[in-house]
């Protein structure tokens, strides 16, 4: 049985005052198997947090069905809440309690007996390296530590499913890596994890399977490897040219070029530069032919790079825009 089933989820935030209604999620479906590390990858505003909110009962779905361990989160909210835990995008630690206390109280809310609460809080404080700050209030902790404290809190009631909403946004690179290691370790112990992110490398590194979301819909779904393989060609060639006639069609016609996509994002930062992404097969003489075409169009080559396709390329291929903050 799947630990999480999301079926045709829809959420429209009603109009409020002058703000129009927002269709944040428009028919999202996915399943997460027991023990799986699943990712929702998408830009800001894609509907990731809304989806997490619906799964955790904090947002009321407009339509569709969500079940955690087979328990409908709308009809049997309290039971579903026992099985899930969430590390939200915003830091919402109880500011009136010390870290140790807020772990113990979390355990109390979930009905853990006293001895079990204390034993588990102690263990999590140790595992997440929070002992030194156990008796401090959240405000005295760094961002990375608050993040770990939220994970410790989430693990207090031994959930079947852990959801993390953009857990590394705003962390420094070191704290980010530490968090990745921590999540991998929890996953290795059998925890089912759903993570949202707008970082490609994060999704690529952590997730066994992921869905790319945009505008409240899933564009594609699969393992990171399969998603990369789904691109035409096998390599990506990034090319910036300045001046001259438009290059897209010319280059697309070349042998070995499987597809061309304009990178339209960020035009303001690079005025007068045509940015193209070519999906290519590596062939002898390909770069030569490309260069020749650019010259023939009267353009000047600004930059060229050949790379293994990344998830970002998959995203650009699907949406025609770059995935950025």
């Amino acid at each position, binding site marked *: 049985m799947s630990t999480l089933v999301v079926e045709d989820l829809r959420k429209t935030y009603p109009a409020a005052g002058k703000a129009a209604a927002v269709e944040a999620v428009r028919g999202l479906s996915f399943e997460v198997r027991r023990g799986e590390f699943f990712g929702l990858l998408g830009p800001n505003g894609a509907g990731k947090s809304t989806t997490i909110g619906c799964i955790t009962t904090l947002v009321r779905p407009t339509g569709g069905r969500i079940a955690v361990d087979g328990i409908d989160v709308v009809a049997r909210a309290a*039971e579903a809440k026992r099985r899930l835990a969430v590390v939200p995008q915003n830091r919402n630690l*109880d500011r009136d309690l010390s870290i140790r206390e807020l772990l113990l109280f979390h355990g109390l809310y979930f009905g853990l007996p006293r001895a079990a609460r204390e034993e588990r809080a102690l263990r999590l404080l140790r595992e997440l390296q929070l002992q030194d700050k156990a008796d401090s209030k959240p405000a005295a902790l760094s961002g990375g530590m608050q993040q770990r404290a939220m994970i410790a809190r989430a693990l207090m009631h031994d959930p079947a499913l852990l959801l993390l909403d953009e857990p590394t946004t705003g962390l420094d690179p070191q704290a980010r890596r530490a968090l990745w290691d921590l999540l991998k370790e929890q996953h290795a112990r059998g925890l089912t994890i759903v993570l949202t992110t707008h970082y490609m490398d994060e999704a690529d590194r952590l997730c066994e399977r992921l869905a790319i979301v945009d505008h409240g819909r899933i564009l594609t779904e699969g393992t990171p490897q399969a998603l990369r393989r789904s691109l035409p060609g096998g390599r990506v060639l990034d090319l910036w040219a300045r001046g001259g006639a438009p290059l897209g069609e010319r280059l697309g016609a070349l042998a070995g070029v499987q597809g061309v996509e304009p990178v339209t994002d960020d035009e303001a930062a690079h005025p007068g530069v045509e940015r193209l992404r070519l999906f290519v097969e590596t062939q002898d003489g390909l770069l030569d032919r490309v260069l020749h075409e650019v010259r023939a169009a009267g353009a000047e080559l600004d930059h060229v790079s050949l790379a293994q396709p990344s998830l970002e390329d998959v995203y650009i291929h699907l949406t025609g825009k770059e995935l950025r903050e």
Partner: protein
Amino acid sequence: MTAFLGLLRRDLLVAWRTAPFLLTSALTQPALVILVFGNILPRLGLVADEFRTVMVPGLMAITILMSGVQGVLMPLAADLSGTREVEERLLAPLSARMVAFERIVAGAIQSGIAGLVALPVMMLLVHQVSGVDVKPDWALLLPLVVVSGIVSAAFGLNLGTRVQPRFSGLLFAVVLGPMMLFGCAYYPWASLDALGSVRFVFLVNPLVFMSEAMRLAVTPEVAHMDPLGILAGLAVFAGLLCWAGARSFESRTIL
């Protein structure tokens, strides 16, 4: 139920830690009023002597109201702030309605304690400044304090969830101030006979019933509203305010 009790324990622990602050803010006003109205003004001949016994239960009702409202409003402000600390409560295995109701119970306990601490303090003060003795019926007082606390905290929940934070500064001037002046705290309901049927307009104010309830239990010798009327009024307000408050809490927190 464990989740409910756990949240209650957490709230009472946090309130206990700020108890000196909470009690100071609850007791200052009644103490000063007793000093001015119980000693200075009567000596100047500006206030009738009976006022001393009239105001004690009224001040107690006001203390309960203000502590109850504060006891819910302040934590609610953190709950609904940008960081949404309320999520931790909403994720506990109980319904959003019960989360709201727990807030009311926590506020009611705080306000009941404030009222029960205020009363002996006021009795002592009144005795000191004017030599008047008040003899409350404690057995009757206790349940009335509990219900009054629930009414106050539930009222606070409605204020906190229905009034936008930027207007919260106006609450005292526009809502709580008038409530206190028109809440039969400084004059018994019976004396409003002089106003004819206009006096029934006063009944939209829950503080009227709280003041009369305290009057009934603290100074039974002073004319007060029919006990059944008091109970009915408190029960109706408690039910209505809890229901409306929980609904509005739910719609503010579950998006």
